[in-house]
């Protein structure tokens, strides 16, 4: 197991805080002379320290997040409103509603009590997460290429690259997340659960709420309703950004 006290993070932190002895400092400075990435790392650490020293801004951000949670009462949000979020979604929603209304009328004549199927619920609620445009240094070539392919909706090749990246670094949470979405987009719903579960089990990170939401949708698509129900129930009682959508889906889900 790695000794954190001797890690690069610790070394840089000690340098920033002037805790290195002259000998250690000399050795480190020599290393820096020939390594641009190391110098960038020190600059990044310094900037992070500055950013997290802005206690007032951090408190304001936290306060705003709490207020957003309290003041927005998405109980009033309906499924219809959530579908009309952008032009693309409006077009998709319009197309879906045509199919859905036509389907519902047919179902009415066949069986008036038929609830919305899991497959239809998936189609109503699922939309891929926005593509990310990234630019970067040569060392991240594969990462950049992967996201470019994702952005271009070339999910098969994006997934191949994401899987290669994850073989090297399974803790790369954004790559895990977009690998999950790429799996959904290529119809591999069962495979998508693995990266989403990895994210859910990784302490706290910015992708946890999203991973929970999409894993619930995967279970819906796989017709494993009990598991989907348990996940949406969990989301609906949390502070997740998806809690109100989860509440709506729970109303429609088949028990």
């Amino acid at each position, binding site marked *: 197991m790695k000794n*954190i006290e001797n890690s690069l993070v610790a070394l840089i932190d000690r340098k920033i805080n002037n805790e290195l002895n002259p000998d250690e400092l000399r050795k480190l400075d020599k290393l820096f002379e020939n390594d641009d990435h190391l110098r960038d790392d020190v600059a990044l*650490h310094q900037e992070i320290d500055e*950013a997290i020293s802005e206690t007032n801004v951090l408190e304001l951000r936290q306060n705003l997040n709490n207020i957003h949670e309290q003041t927005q009462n998405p109980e009033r949000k309906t499924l219809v409103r959530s579908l009309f979020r952008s032009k693309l979604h409006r077009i998709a929603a319009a197309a879906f509603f045509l199919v859905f209304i036509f389907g519902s009328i047919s179902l009415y004549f066949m069986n008036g009590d038929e609830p919305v199927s899991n497959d239809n619920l998936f189609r109503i609620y699922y939309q891929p997460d*926005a593509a990310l445009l*990234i*630019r970067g240094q040569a060392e991240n070539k594969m990462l950049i290429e992967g996201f470019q392919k994702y952005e271009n909706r070339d999910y098969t090749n994006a997934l191949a690259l994401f899987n290669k990246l994850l073989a090297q670094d399974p*803790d790369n949470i*954004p790559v895990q997340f977009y690998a999950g979405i790429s799996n959904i987009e290529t119809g591999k719903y069962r495979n998508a659960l693995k990266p989403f579960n990895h994210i859910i089990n990784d302490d706290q990170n910015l992708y946890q709420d999203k991973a929970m939401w999409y894993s619930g949708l995967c279970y819906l698509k796989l017709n494993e309703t009990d598991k989907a129900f348990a996940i949406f129930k969990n989301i609906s009682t949390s502070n997740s950004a998806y809690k109100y959508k989860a509440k709506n889906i729970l109303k429609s889900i088949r028990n």
Partner: protein
Amino acid sequence: MHYIEESLLEGIRLNDTDTLEYIYKKFYPSIKNFIILNSGTEEDSKDIFQESIIVIYRRLKTQKDFTISCSFKTYMYSISRNLWLKELEKRKTEQAKIKNTEEFESTNCEIQDPVSNPKEERYKLYQNHFLSLSKDCQQVLRLFMDKVSLKEIAKIMGYTSEKYAKKRKYQCKEILVKRIKNDPYYYKSI
């Protein structure tokens, strides 16, 4: 400057929850409509609205004689509009012209300085990741930033030794740095 504008700005400067709640209830819906009308999502609306308040807060902190020459609503809208245009530019959205919502059709407030700079954008990324850390990690890193002694930190956090306090700091810092480096937005911002 009108009394209402003055009191709202003062409330932001003091991070006053009542004022911020009022601002949220009163102005968030129209900003959200505007963002959604221009290819955004609810999450984008939340982000842009909150960032607009942070922009005002930073101005209040750095410019002692900071005033606004229009209504607070128009000022908020102008900042949000600029921030959203910048974001659309980053996303390379092919949008010929941004659409104003009806209520903001003829209103715009002149903003002299850029609404945010690249450094502030990076800070936003770092701070959001910091706020996503466990409470324990946030607190230990804050205590170190505040130059609290190792002995005190160990006592406050209930750690068995000063050595462990230091170890925990490095662990938390490592998690934070890794998450930032793994965030695709980090590569957009450098």
